[in-house]
Each structure stands twice: as structure tokens, then as C-alpha cells.
């Protein structure tokens, strides 16, 4: 695969060149107040940061609210964010036409719940930072997909710490053509490596109930999940979480009711609903005010269920989501 060896200055130059057009935008990271945040860049690229060692939300969630004909956006985000964007395009929530998704190698991130500040954002310092500390958030430590190999193009870091740009699609070539300088690079050894496969997730209802018992049903996990996109969520109505008379009827019928109502049901159904699209970014856990270990379940279940169909959320934008397609001769052992 042909790519270009670049540096941070060249990347900023390329983005600047892209932003010269009035209709163009860049969604990326900005250094601000001792941390790094998402930002839609239009005029200047001041304080632009290629890497983001802090995790607050998954950037794909902002894309669901961006609809505009004629506007072109470059996403300079983490692989998990680009993968979530890919899943949303498959679900017709985002129009892929106007977006160039560039995944940037990820070194991991810390949770904003921990008060960690002044983490380096440059490659040289960052690549050693997470080796020396255990402040990395749990979802990132188990993440096997930190490589920038998804989307239209990728920015990779090689073992020497220099940056490489690789195009994966036609639009990726378009992104690459923004770089005038930088010399051709074919292959190099990359810094971010694939982790070993882990055992498939196994739990039981007792552990699950215990872990989930702190849940207060604020539904922040649902609202901050990048791939949980339904506007008419089944939990917004009264059908799944009965109120008033319906709740009392249920209590009289079954004897007692756990309060808050239906938290196990809520997480169970949500776990199934995102099982094929979950990218394991851990935004749900980050959003949880009670510190419920949600990623353990959501990532575990989704990996197991995606594995059934040899599918992986966001790996390939042309693969169809397993529930939306089928093969005639399969899953013979599923029927009883």
C-alpha cells in the first residue's frame, strides 16, 4: 500500500488547504485548558491536536446532528470513533458522501473521571506515557483495534515515531492529494500492534444483577452511546417501563417490584440492540454517574455476538450488518 511519510506540520498544512474552500470543515481535537476536546474547525487550526489522550465522548455522536448538502467534512478521529461513524452510515444515519473519515492511531486514553492533567499530546512523549502509568481507562486497555486502519484513510505511527498517511478508498486518495510534500512510503513497522484474542465473555445473572444494582436509570449510557441512535427508543414510552396504574397493576400481579423499575431489562435489551454495532469505545461507562462497569458487558457480549457472524463493527464499511442480511444455509444448530 502506497502512503506518504509526513509530520505534524504537513498534516496541519493539508487541513488548512482543505479548509480554504468555504464549504469545508474539519472535525478533530483541540488542546484546551489542560485537556483535549472535540472541535469543528472552520477558520483556523489553532491548538489543533492530532492525538487525544482524554476520553469524554465518542466523536461519532456529533455527526448524527450534522446534516447539510454540499458541506464536506474531514474527520480526524480515533479508530473507535471512525468505526462508530461507519456503523451509523450503514444504518443510514449519516450520509457518507460528504465525509472523509481519517482514523488516527490511538495510544489509549484516560478517563475524565480521574483527575489527570497535562498528558503529553505529541507522539514522542505520548508513546511512553501510557507504559509508565496505569491511569489508562479500562475499555482502552482491552481494546484490540487501536490501529488507524479503518475509514477512508489512516494516519499511522511507525516504531521510530514518525507519521505515515495511508489511503484506503477513493476518498482517502483525495485526502492524500492534499499533501504536496512528504515522500512515498510503502511499508514500515508500526508502533500500535494488534492484541491477542481474548476468551469469549461469560457471566451469569447474579453477577450481572450485582454489577448493575447501582444503576439509577438516568439513561445517560443510552444517550451517549454513538450507535444507539433510535429517536423513538422503546424505553421512552410506557410499554417497557410502566408508570402509574400500569406499574401498580404489575406490582399487584407479580407481588413486588424492584425500584428503579426495569434496570436489568433496560440494560439487557440495550445490550442486544447494540450487539452488532457496538465498537467497545466505553462511552457508556464514561457517561455513567454511578460507575457501573458497563463496557465489561457491552463489549463482551458484542464481541461474542459479532464473532458468530465473523463480523466486526466498523471494520469494513461495505460489509452489511448481520441482522440485515442472511445466508440460506447457516446456523443449523440454532433451532431446537
Amino acid at each position, binding site marked *: 500500500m502506497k502512503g506518504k511519510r509526513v509530520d505534524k506540520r504537513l498534516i496541519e498544512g493539508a487541513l488548512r488547504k482543505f479548509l480554504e474552500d468555504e464549504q469545508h470543515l474539519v472535525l478533530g481535537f483541540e488542546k484546551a485548558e489542560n485537556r483535549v476536546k472535540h472541535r469543528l474547525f472552520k477558520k483556523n487550526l489553532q491548538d489543533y491536536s492530532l492525538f487525544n489522550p482524554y476520553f469524554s465522548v465518542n466523536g461519532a455522536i456529533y455527526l448524527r446532528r450534522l446534516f447539510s448538502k454540499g458541506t464536506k467534512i474531514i474527520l480526524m478521529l480515533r479508530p473507535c470513533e471512525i468505526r462508530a461513524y461507519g456503523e451509523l452510515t450503514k444504518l443510514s444515519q449519516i450520509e457518507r458522501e460528504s465525509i472523509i473519515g481519517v482514523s488516527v492511531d490511538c495510544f489509549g486514553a484516560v478517563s475524565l473521571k480521574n483527575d489527570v492533567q497535562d498528558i503529553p499530546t505529541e507522539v514522542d512523549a505520548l508513546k511512553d506515557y501510557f507504559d509508565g502509568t496505569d491511569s489508562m481507562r479500562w475499555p482502552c486497555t482491552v481494546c484490540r483495534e487501536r490501529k488507524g486502519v479503518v475509514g477512508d484513510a489512516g494516519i499511522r505511527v511507525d516504531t521510530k515515531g514518525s507519521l505515515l498517511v495511508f489511503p484506503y478508498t477513493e476518498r482517502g486518495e483525495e485526502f492524500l492529494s492534499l499533501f504536496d510534500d512528504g515522500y512515498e512510503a510503502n511499508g514500515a513497522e508500526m508502533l500500535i500492534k494488534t492484541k491477542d484474542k481474548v476468551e*469469549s*465473555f*461469560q*457471566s*451469569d*445473572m447474579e453477577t*450481572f*444483577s450485582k454489577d448493575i444494582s447501582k444503576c439509577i436509570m438516568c439513561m445517560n449510557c443510552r444517550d451517549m452511546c454513538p450507535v444507539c441512535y433510535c429517536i423513538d427508543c*422503546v424505553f421512552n414510552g410506557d410499554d*417497557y417501563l410502566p408508570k402509574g396504574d400500569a406499574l401498580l397493576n*404489575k406490582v399487584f400481579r*407479580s*407481588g*413486588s*417490584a*424492584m425500584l428503579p423499575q*426495569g434496570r*436489568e*431489562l433496560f440494560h*439487557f*435489551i440495550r*445490550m*442486544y*440492540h447494540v*450487539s*452488532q454495532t457496538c465498537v467497545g469505545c466505553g462511552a457508556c461507562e464514561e457517561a455513567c454517574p454511578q460507575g457501573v462497569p458497563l463496557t465489561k458487558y457491552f463489549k*463482551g*457480549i458484542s464481541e*461474542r*455476538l459479532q464473532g*458468530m*457472524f465473523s463480523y466486526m463493527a466498523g471494520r469494513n464499511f461495505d460489509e452489511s450488518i*448481520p*441482522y440485515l442480511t*442472511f445466508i*440460506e444455509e*447457516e*446456523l443449523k444448530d*440454532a*433451532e*431446537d
Partner: protein
Amino acid sequence: MTEEKKDKNPEIVGFACSFCSFKASEMAGSLRMKYPEGVKLIQVPCSSRVDPAFVIKAIFEGADGVFVAGCHPGDCHFIKGNYYTRRKIAALKEMFNAFSIKNKIRLFWVSASEARRFVEKVSNMYNEIKEAKT
């Protein structure tokens, strides 16, 4: 599920496709075949109408088991509905398996003429769940 049932007779909720499995159950009735009283059938237009959320809800609201019954693959009135069902329910089974509650869910294919097969499948499921309960 958190509210333990005291009686030992399991309650089973079944989602039956109106073109095959529900017809089979009607035929079982007209042939005077018997299947356990605890089985509550819900007629759905096609087995792929069953959102796994229905199944999960039924189980959390106190059902001891849930089955989804549809036409044999290839015989769907809507051409390919049951292929989607198979993927969805197989994934749901895998999820139940991960939580060690796999025996609570079944997927059957029963065509309209297979009344005997329907009764056998349902009674077997009922007996298995009853045995596990005691």
C-alpha cells in the same frame, strides 16, 4: 426474573407465526391433541416480527421460557422473514448463553400441517423447564 415464582408449573410464552405455527396449534386443537396449559401463544404476522426485546421482556416479567415458532426456512409467506429470525434468535441465544440462562429460549420451525410436531416440541420444552425448576 428477580421475583421468584412459588408454584412449580412453568409459564411459557410462545410467539407463533400466523401462517404456519399458529395454524399448527389450531390444527392441534381441532385434532383434540393436548399441550400444557402453561403455554401462552401470541400470534405474530411473521416470526421476524418478534423483536428480541419482546423475548427479553417476557423473561424479565416472569416467564419461565419463551419460544419463537416460524415456518421452515424457505417457506416463509414473506419470502425471507424467517432467515432474519434465525439470525436474530441465534444471536439472542448466544447472549443468553453468555449469561448462563440458555435453556429459557427455543426456536422451532413448524409448518401448518405439523400439529403433532408442534405439540411434541412444546411439551418437551415444558417438561424440560419443569424438571429444571424442581
